[in-house]
């Protein structure tokens, strides 16, 4: 574990070093390729002088709302498709179809139908999560060993309680990987929607920050915003997901 962190840390240092060398040699115009110091400054200014902090919070609040709705729907609909075969057949087809449509492609329709409020962005986030997550959950459900189901039926679980008592925990490695994919997809959906929408009536997010920085050719600012996205992603991956994994699938000795 420690070794792994060391390797990863050394790699990051190496990349930063190369970056600075490339900058020093002026291989690209400074405008296009800012120094690490410029990016650091833009990052700092973003939070202190500008409203990057607020924008991050706004983005996160949209993201979380969309994530919770999308995740709940994915659980509910995947669960229903185990309990009812007709529904399952239809839903798996629906997942295959809808998963192909990028969130951005839905934006014109969403704007036309729902305007440019928060609900529209949340809808895009929900769309980005629900299909890949349902796919993982249903894959997980279908790989639950027959033995567990028979044990479940034997001890008197009914159709609904077998879903919560057997399918869900037995498929938890898949469920978790679905949550991870969903989380990443949610970010993408959110940032693209924000960049296209600009500000909504109630606030502006990171996507809008990036868009403005690009318009002003403040490339250091663009990188600063990307850094924020990566930082949040890393925290969630290394803190939240690791924590959940440690207390579930690794404790149970299932999954990878």
């Amino acid at each position, binding site marked *: 574990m420690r070794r792994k962190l060391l390797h990863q840390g050394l790699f990051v240092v190496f990349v930063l070093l190369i970056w600075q060398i490339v900058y020093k040699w002026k291989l690209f115009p400074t405008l296009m390729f800012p120094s690490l110091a410029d990016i650091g400054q833009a990052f700092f200014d973003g939070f202190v002088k500008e409203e990057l902090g607020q924008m991050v919070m706004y983005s996160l609040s949209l993201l979380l709302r969309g994530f919770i709705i999308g995740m709940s729907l994915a659980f509910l609909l995947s669960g229903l498709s185990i309990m009812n075969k007709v529904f399952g057949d239809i839903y798996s087809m629906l997942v295959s179809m809808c998963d192909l449509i990028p969130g951005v492609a839905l934006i014109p329709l969403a704007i036309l139908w729902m305007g440019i409020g928060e609900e529209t962005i949340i809808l895009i986030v929900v769309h980005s999560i629900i299909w890949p997550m349902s796919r993982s959950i249903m894959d997980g459900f279908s790989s639950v060993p027959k*033995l*567990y189901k*028979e*044990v479940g039926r*034997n*001890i008197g679980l009914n159709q609904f309680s077998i879903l919560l008592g057997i399918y869900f*925990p037995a498929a*938890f490695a898949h469920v978790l990987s679905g949550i991870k994919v969903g989380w990443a997809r949610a970010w993408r959906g959110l940032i693209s929607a924000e960049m296209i929408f600009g500000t909504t009536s109630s606030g502006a997010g990171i996507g809008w920050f990036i868009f403005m920085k690009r318009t002003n050719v403040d490339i250091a600012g663009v990188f600063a915003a990307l850094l924020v996205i990566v930082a949040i992603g890393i925290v969630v991956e290394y803190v939240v997901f690791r924590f959940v994994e440690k207390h579930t699938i690794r404790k149970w*000795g*299932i999954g990878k």
Partner: protein
Amino acid sequence: MTGRPILEIKNLVKQFHDEMAAEQGNILDGVDFTMYSGEFVCILGPSGCGKSTFLRCIGGFESYEGTILVNGQKVERPGTDRIMVFQEFGQLLPWKSVEKNVQYPLKVRGLRDKAKLQEISDTYLEKVDMLAYKKFYPHQLSGGMKQRTAIARALALSPEIVLMDEPFASLDAMSRNNLQSELYKIHQRENVSVIFITHNIQEAICLGTRILVMSKDGKIKMDIRNPLVKPVTPASPNYGEMWDKLHSALYEMTEE
């Protein structure tokens, strides 16, 4: 020794459903069988004779023709009055500790009192010598320990019949002997009724109070009381005679 009849089977027929199979026919062909409470019935038979199917029909896991009555009730689905102990070590739920594996079926049945649950799981884990491991997760246990826990889980439900499908077949010879003698002791003390599938003649003689031999055409070929005084060892009087009798019954059919 024999009590009231708890299991009555009349003209049980189970057909092949496999359309790919060249020969069509019955796996079970008109089986009649009555079991009395407190009996330990061992079923011997060559592989493919339908002994597992027989057990699964009683367990309620298979559709069948004919009648299976447990305490006068027709068997239509699995239930906690007939608990299966499978051959596979994977029958414990990996996301639950040893004691939770024992408690969970009781909770499903509606027992909510935590102290009572703890008391029951401790009692039964003690009987199978697993009390020291009650906080362990299944992946931390050996095969023999998993089977012990599965037996405790079955007994804790106080079922009418415990259905055991070669539970010791995947164990090494030493664990197997230990578990056999412990299971026999538990049977003596608790007076539970057990149907135990095996293809091991020694096992049948050591455990059974009654031994059935099934033939390849899905019929009960021999149904005898086991008169040997427990605990049985190869030095017990009449052991050789009994072994010969069962051996020739088994092998006579394999040659046919």
